[in-house]
């Protein structure tokens, strides 16, 4: 009964104009009280989506007049110039104009030599290139793919568990393909859980199914205060947000990505959509001890994009390797060192 | 009457001359060197009407050779109807029926068994004794293990190969 009333409360709160403040207050109170019922990931995701939608609508509202920009595409099938809408058109839209192949295979775009998400609006006249997994040097694509896989792993952890378990995602390190696995560090609230092969399989299935749902990765730059609101029920993220914001160019903005209804903080860039996944497996869950955040779970996985074929035997061999503990740095506090140093050093290590 | 209406064509010169055109080992004896019949190996098999060369010193064999009328096989004493080395055959020679043993063959033989340039026979009487007293050509050594009447032939042989 109590739970149901809570739900109602939440909905009422969310609908009201002052919903976020009221909600956060409410949640905090609930968390603080010992008798509080457990918060679920589903509710948190719902709330974040609301905020995301609102913020995006707000940002879109700034564009009152549609301005044209000139986009010069370089590369196959042919070099061409496109006239696109400023702040609205994305590289994906450009690809739609040029050819289906680019639409399907492009992982990333290079805008004026900088990596750019496929679904991020273009803001000025630029030179555009598309990257895919079979490029001459697909380093950027690989990084984006591996980062996206970590991102998806976060989604898997949030959605795969029953509502009784509130999974708090912590962070994931800079993608490192050579380590053999991608990683997400999270507090699963399960101290002695060592998943069986079948359970890992079930986790993998959640990620694997994304291949068919074909979710896009949407990017949004938001203010740190909004971000804090978004992630206030996640103790790790709310601690990290000020630091991340401090590193940004404006000093107070945070980059957020949304895939389906899952929102996470990452610097990006990520791949175009989840349709590019071919195989996705969660291979291991390790226990790690963070000096700041206490005991955490390091969830590892491995994935292969659609365009690269691999025999099952080879893939299983790689999976075996991915079960070993990933040597990526354990998430530590940003506070340990002054801000300008973290920008230089820690910024490279920790992505969010 | 018929002869008048349909004149009978003149007979072939060879037929007129009465010379037998035959194949076999003594073919070169023939008056007509260029012959038009086949001598392919399938004819080397000993069947009925095969011409054989008598290799013993019997008078009958001599006579047949001089008259260029070689012995012809008219029966082979085995179930196949094809004669092989050491088989007993019945031959017609100079108007007589005679029994004989094959002692040499023209067809290809197995390894270590001699092949001869002619098909050789040795005439025997009905009781198994050879008609002649000596065999003029070598006899295959593999026939030496034969028993019975064949030993009488082996006894008059001069050479073995």
């Amino acid at each position: 009964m109590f739970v149901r009333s809570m739900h109602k409360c939440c909905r009422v709160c969310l609908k009201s104009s002052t919903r976020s403040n009221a909600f956060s207050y409410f949640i905090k109170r609930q968390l603080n009280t010992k008798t509080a019922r457990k918060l679920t990931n589903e509710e948190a995701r719902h709330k974040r989506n609301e905020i995301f939608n609102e913020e995006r609508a707000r940002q879109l509202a700034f564009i009152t007049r549609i301005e044209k920009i000139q986009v010069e595409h370089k590369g196959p099938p042919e070099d061409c110039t496109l006239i696109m809408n400023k702040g609205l058109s994305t590289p994906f839209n450009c690809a739609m104009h040029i050819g289906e192949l680019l639409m399907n295979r492009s992982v990333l775009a290079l805008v004026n030599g900088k990596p750019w998400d496929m679904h991020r609006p273009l803001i000025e006249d630029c030179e555009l290139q598309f990257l895919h997994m079979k490029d001459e040097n697909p380093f950027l694509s690989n990084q984006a793919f591996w980062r996206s896989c970590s991102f998806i792993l976060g989604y898997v952890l949030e959605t795969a568990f029953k509502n009784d378990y509130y999974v708090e995602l912590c962070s994931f390190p800079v993608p490192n393909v050579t380590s053999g696995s991608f990683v997400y560090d999270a507090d699963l609230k399960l101290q002695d859980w060592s998943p069986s092969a079948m359970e890992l399989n079930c986790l993998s299935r959640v990620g694997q199914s994304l291949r068919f749902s074909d979710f896009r990765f949407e990017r949004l730059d938001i203010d740190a205060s909004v971000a804090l609101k978004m992630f206030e029920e996640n103790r790790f993220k709310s601690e990290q947000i000020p630091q991340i914001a401090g590193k940004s160019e404006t000093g107070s903005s945070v980059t957020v990505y949304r895939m389906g209804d899952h929102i996470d903080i990452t610097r990006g860039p990520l791949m175009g959509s989840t349709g590019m996944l071919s195989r996705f497996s969660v291979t291991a869950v390790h226990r790690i001890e963070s000096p700041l955040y206490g005991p955490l779970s390091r969830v590892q996985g491995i994935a292969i994009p659609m365009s690269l074929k691999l025999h099952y035997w080879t893939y299983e061999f790689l999976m075996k390797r991915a079960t070993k503990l990933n040597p990526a740095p354990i998430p530590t506090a940003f506070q340990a060192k002054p801000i300008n140093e973290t920008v230089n050093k820690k910024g490279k290590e920790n992505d969010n | 009457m018929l002869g008048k209406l349909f004149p009978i064509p003149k007979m072939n010169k060879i037929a007129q001359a009465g010379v037998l055109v035959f194949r076999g080992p003594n073919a070169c004896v023939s008056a007509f060197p260029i012959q038009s019949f086949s001598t392919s190996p399938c004819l080397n098999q000993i069947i009925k009407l095969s011409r054989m060369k008598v290799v013993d010193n019997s008078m009958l064999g001599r006579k047949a050779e001089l008259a260029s009328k070689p012995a012809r096989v008219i029966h082979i004493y085995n179930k196949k109807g094809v004669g092989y080395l050491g088989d007993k055959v019945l031959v017609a020679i100079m108007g007589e029926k005679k029994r004989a043993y094959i002692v040499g063959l023209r067809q290809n033989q197995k390894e270590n068994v001699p092949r001869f340039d002619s098909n050789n026979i040795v005439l025997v009487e009905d009781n198994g004794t050879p008609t002649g007293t000596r065999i003029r050509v070598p006899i295959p050594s593999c026939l030496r293990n034969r028993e019975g009447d064949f030993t009488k032939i082996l006894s008059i042989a001069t050479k073995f190969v």
Partner: protein
Amino acid sequence: MNMFRFPVRNTPRKFKKSFGVGSGPAERIKKLQMLVTALIRNERLEAKESYCLETRGYVEQLIQIAIRNGDRHAETMEKADFWLLEKDLVHKLFKVLVPRYQNYSTACTDFHFLPKKVPGSGVQMGILELKGNPWPPVVPRQRDQGHLLTNVLLSSAKAEYRMEKKITPDLRNGDHDKLEQAANT
């Protein structure tokens, strides 16, 4: 055992009556003479698949005997004279092609299938070429695949695997006999 450096059928293909020649074994050789001459002349040939594959054998054999026997060998010279209808190609065979393929351990020709025209006649066309010719390559330049995601994963796995097994890399690159010998000693 099989000394051919290229796939060979047990029986030769029969040629149908084609342009310039009739049918039958003698005409087949005539057609092949033309094809061999054209290939040695132009170093690349586009024809029916069956023509290409038959020509291939004759060109390979011709070059092989030219390499083995040299231009002082009467029989080889006779063969070259027969197969090359344009006589200046005999010089090309001995002066250009023989030095080029002297140290080859593989076939000295390449065959590629051409795509079928759809809709069109059902004849499978192909390209036959001499290796090391001056034409642009039939197969465009292949990308370096070493940096693909799967290869990055495998390469790092390889390094780790080798570290675990503690086997020196030079031995690993060699054949397995060496490995066994090393293990035995």
